[in-house]
């Protein structure tokens, strides 16, 4: 049968039907393609966790739970313990948060309530831009500019004035090296201040104007409005922002590697060199010469991953709580 007659013999609408079938197929394929891309996101996180658990299995099997509490880090005798890096990570992150949280709150308050209207947007943009500066720049600045100042002025002063106090003394006594946990904590604080303050600023901006205006109408001062209205309304999101910064501080590598000193000695003093999980991995991984050594470093990475996962998950849940309430309001 010639082609032309077959075409004419088709029932009307068949071409359209074929086309819609083709479109339906294309739609399904499109949906599968983009769905597969979303699956890659899930697979990346799961893969990262599992591959590190797998890579660290040697260390976990050899040292058992003692891996967490041992302070030994001896590449020659193949004995590795994670306590010093864990301790250093937590201490530097805590110092960073102790400085960064109040300062970021002040900046957010300044940018939402205090600053002249014309200044607010440019300063906020500048701070966001600064949040994008690579951490290696913070590290270099720390090493070349801040460490000498700490070593020559701050550390001797702390040692002389606080070093003899009964409880705090051991924290602040030590030789004026400049590098150490306190320095690393301060550099980290400078690094996370832009993050936390931009989150806090955005969160503060979500408070409905009528809430604030009602409080002002009752005679509240600006501070009272912020403390009694803005903060309680945004509490969960503010905590979320703080945890986001904490996640950054815990996992930050380059900024601390420069100024921490890479020492596996456990000391109480904040002026002495220490180590953090990320810095240990960055310093030693490429040179790790035995499988157990490398496995111990991967195991450290796994611990870091678990801790930051928990911290970031808390941050997300807290931040989400505000946006959900906003959505329902």
């Amino acid at each position: 049968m010639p082609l032309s007659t077959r075409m004419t013999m088709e029932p009307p609408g068949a071409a359209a039907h074929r086309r819609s079938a083709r479109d339906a197929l294309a739609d399904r394929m499109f949906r599968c393609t983009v769905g597969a891309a979303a699956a890659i996101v899930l697979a990346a996180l799961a893969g990262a966790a599992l591959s590190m658990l797998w890579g660290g299995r040697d260390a976990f099997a050899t040292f058992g739970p003692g891996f967490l509490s041992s302070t030994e880090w001896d590449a020659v005798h193949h004995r590795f313990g994670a306590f010093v890096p864990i301790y250093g990570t937590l201490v530097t992150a805590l110092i960073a948060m102790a400085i960064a949280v109040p300062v970021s709150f002040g900046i957010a308050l300044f940018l939402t309530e205090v600053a002249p209207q014309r200044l607010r947007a440019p300063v906020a943009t500048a701070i966001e831009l600064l949040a994008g500066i690579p951490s290696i720049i913070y590290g270099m600045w720390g090493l070349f500019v801040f460490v000498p100042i700490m070593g020559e002025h701050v550390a001797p002063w702390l040692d002389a004035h606080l070093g003899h106090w009964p409880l705090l003394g051991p924290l602040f006594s030590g030789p004026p090296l400049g590098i150490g946990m306190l320095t690393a904590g301060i550099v980290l604080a400078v690094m996370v201040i832009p993050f936390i303050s931009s989150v806090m600023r955005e969160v503060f901006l979500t408070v409905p104007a009528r809430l604030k205006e009602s409080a002002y109408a009752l005679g509240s001062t600006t501070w009272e409005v912020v403390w009694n209205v803005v903060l309680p309304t945004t509490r969960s999101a503010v905590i979320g922002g703080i945890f986001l910064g904490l996640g950054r501080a815990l996992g930050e590598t380059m900024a601390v590697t420069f100024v921490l000193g890479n020492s596996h000695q456990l000391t109480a003093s904040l002026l002495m060199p220490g180590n953090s999980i990320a810095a240990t991995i960055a310093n030693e991984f490429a040179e790790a010469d035995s499988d157990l050594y490398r496995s111990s470093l991967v195991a450290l990475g796994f611990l870091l991953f678990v801790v930051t996962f928990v911290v970031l998950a808390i941050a997300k849940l807290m931040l989400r709580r505000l946006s959900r309430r906003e959505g329902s309001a």
Partner: protein
Amino acid sequence: MRASVDRLHRRRRVVNAFNLVASCACALFGLFWLVWILWTTLRHGIAALKPGLFTQMTPPPGSDGGLANALFGSLAMSLVAIAIGAPVGVAAGTWLAEFARRRALGEAVRFVNDILLSAPSIVLGLFVYTLFVRPRGHFSGWAGAIALALIVVPVVVRTTDEMLQLVPATMREAALSLGVPQWKVTLQVLYRSALPGIATGILLALARISGETAPLLFTSLNNQYWSHDMDAPLASMPVVIFQYAMSPYESWQSLAWAGAFVVTTFVLVLGIAARAVLLRNKVSHD
């Protein structure tokens, strides 16, 4: 009675004034450090700039040289990372915004993506090491690019998702009611409307990876010589900066400052460009 009210009033005003001044001080304190860091980078960086920086190879200690191979390596790895990461990110963002808006699975992917967005980058480096470097037995530029792509993906997913959600539903409905299949609606209508936002996301992702050091340390490693072989160890700006800054040689340190200046300028310019793209195209969808 009157006196106590006055006292209370005065105390509230004093507390208010004190706290507001403290907030100004905090803002100044925060900006002071950041300006100080930028100023240091600018001062040391400009002093170390020279024409040979972009044409000469990284030198052995003590002799003269530039950063040409590191610049090339960074450029190559960043471009490959964007070429891999951006399509995946845009596709995943599309799935989130168009197919999974109010589904639990969509929420789960969004959650995981947000975690990936702030996960420590050194962990991603370890992941790529165990996945690619270890089995193949050598460091390579490809591995570095994949590690960077893992950082690109969540940034692009996030912005694509947000930007597509901003496209008004009426636009989708108008196109669909004409009988256009959904994939065509997405590709030809929604992407066109959300393009500035998606482009911003890709620019921000590029800014983010151009300074990333930690994931490259044990994926692409480093290379002292000119190499355009992506299957071999490759030099990159951040890793060279790290190595040179930690070295005791003055010529290396000054090169590190020059590199830091170049990277910082690039990141800041990208950041400003991304914001400009978004601002200029802040179209109303009417």
